């Protein structure tokens, strides 16, 4: 019996993938041995990230790690992947929303319609600004060309931010060629890990989302061909990958704020930042009005955040 071979492409470049996906895939390959091997490719390596969904759905690539937003998935849930503004406060919110508040079922249904298997969603880091110039107020954001996720960009454009989408691997160079003034794509751990801390000087401590929601996906046909134990092994490795990121980001965010030397921290006062949070409430309603499925997801987000509010500390402060 010959070895099953999969090609998997992640949305992350090599430096980031070293943490967010490679350990899990290495583990999978070690355990699966001769039965199955997954070859991992990085951002834009085989196909550009914008074509990732199509390539997986068509079978050019067997599996994908990405958020729904960046890979432009043609589903009702696309806007909620990546950074949905203020959808979550902590990275633990994401798995709770998926496993206990019913997002898994919705995602599963939506992706089944388009020939793709949604395997598992997990949390990444919060969404902060890293910029060349300091940001002390909302006015400082005006006119800044910023690399960010599509939906986050749509939301931020009302504050004068000019969202730019470029291939992930080109961001560092784009900062230097002046194509970009900053990134709103990650927390500080990623800024240091992937080298963006070397090309930016300031880190804004306010965030527009506490955790990025990203998932592992596979081509439906290819997934169905796998024997059950390999499917289970793949799920276990995905979960391991989610777990790794929980502590890697959580610890990294704190320690780099405290000990990092490459970026100066700036903050927009809470009272002013409240405008952004208010705008997010409006944005949620706009999105909910677009379709029944979106309305359902927004409802879940609202219910979840209300519950957390009621639960009080440490779930929500103030």
């Amino acid at each position: 019996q010959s070895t099953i071979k999969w090609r998997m492409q992640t949305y992350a470049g090599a430096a980031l993938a070293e943490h967010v996906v490679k350990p899990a895939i290495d583990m999978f390959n070690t355990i699966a041995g001769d039965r199955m091997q997954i070859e991992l490719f990085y951002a834009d390596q085989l196909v550009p990230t914008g074509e990732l969904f199509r390539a997986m759905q068509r079978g050019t690539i067997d599996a994908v790690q990405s958020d729904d937003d960046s890979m432009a998935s043609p589903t009702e849930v696309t806007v909620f992947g990546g950074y949905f503004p203020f959808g979550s406060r902590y990275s633990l919110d994401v798995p709770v929303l998926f496993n206990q508040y019913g997002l898994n079922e919705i995602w599963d249904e939506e992706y089944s319609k388009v020939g793709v298997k949604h395997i598992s969603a997990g949390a990444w880091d919060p969404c902060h600004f890293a910029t060349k110039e300091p940001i002390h107020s909302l006015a400082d954001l005006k006119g800044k060309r910023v690399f960010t996720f599509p939906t986050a960009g749509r939301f931020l454009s009302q504050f004068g931010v000019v969202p730019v989408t470029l291939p992930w691997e080109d961001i560092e160079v784009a900062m230097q060629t002046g194509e970009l003034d900053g990134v709103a794509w990650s927390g500080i751990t990623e800024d240091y890990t992937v080298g963006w801390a070397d090309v930016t000087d300031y880190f804004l401590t306010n965030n527009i989302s506490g955790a990025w929601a990203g998932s592992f996906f596979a081509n439906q046909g290819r997934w169905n061909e796998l024997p059950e134990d390999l499917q289970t092994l793949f799920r276990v490795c995905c979960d391991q990958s989610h777990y790794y990121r929980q502590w890697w980001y959580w610890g990294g965010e704190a320690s780099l704020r405290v000990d990092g030397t490459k970026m100066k921290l700036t903050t927009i006062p809470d009272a002013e930042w409240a405008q952004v949070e208010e705008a997010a409430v409006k944005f949620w309603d706009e999105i909910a009005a677009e379709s029944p499925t979106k309305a359902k997801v927004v409802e879940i987000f609202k219910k979840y955040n209300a519950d957390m509010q009621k639960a009080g500390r440490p779930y929500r402060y103030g």
Partner: protein
Amino acid sequence: MPRFILRYIRAIEALNRFIGRIAMYLIFVLVGVLLWSSISKTFFVPSMWTLETAQFVMVAYYVLGGPYSIQMGSNVRMDLFYGGWSLKTKAWMDAFTVFFLMFYLGVLLYGAVSSTAYSLGYFGMEPFDFFWGLLKTLLTEGPGATGEKLGYLERSSTAWRPHLWPIKTILCTGVLLMLLQCLAELFRDIGRIRGVEL
């Protein structure tokens, strides 16, 4: 040479020349978009659409200009041996190897059509059937019904979110014209082998 082949060559070359000569001026559109980008960035709020628009223009520029560039003979060849051959030998070799080029363009066209079908919301494996169905609906039931047959229209994964079917359609058109141009080149080479310059 049969008359229709001559007519084919004339028609395709005229068409490609016409389209190529329009595409050639896109360089000024490109300069304009990028200049506007720098002006708006310096004096006003930078525009969200400039970089992506410039990219679309660049694609249209090279893909629609491609067949005309073939006519101008500007696509380099490795002429280590080729350069030393007689016109007739070149024609023989080209008449043969142009099929490799057309194979590549064919695969490119297939990918382009399939990707364009996807951008119009078709997720199946038979893109040509999809377009055939669209065409039939358009002819029998009119544009309204055709619109309803379209699915989720693909948008670029940027904040500006332009639809992608226009640029993908341009790519399909350009590659198809490129194929037709190569067929004309093949006929010319067959002519040369028989000793006529078409």
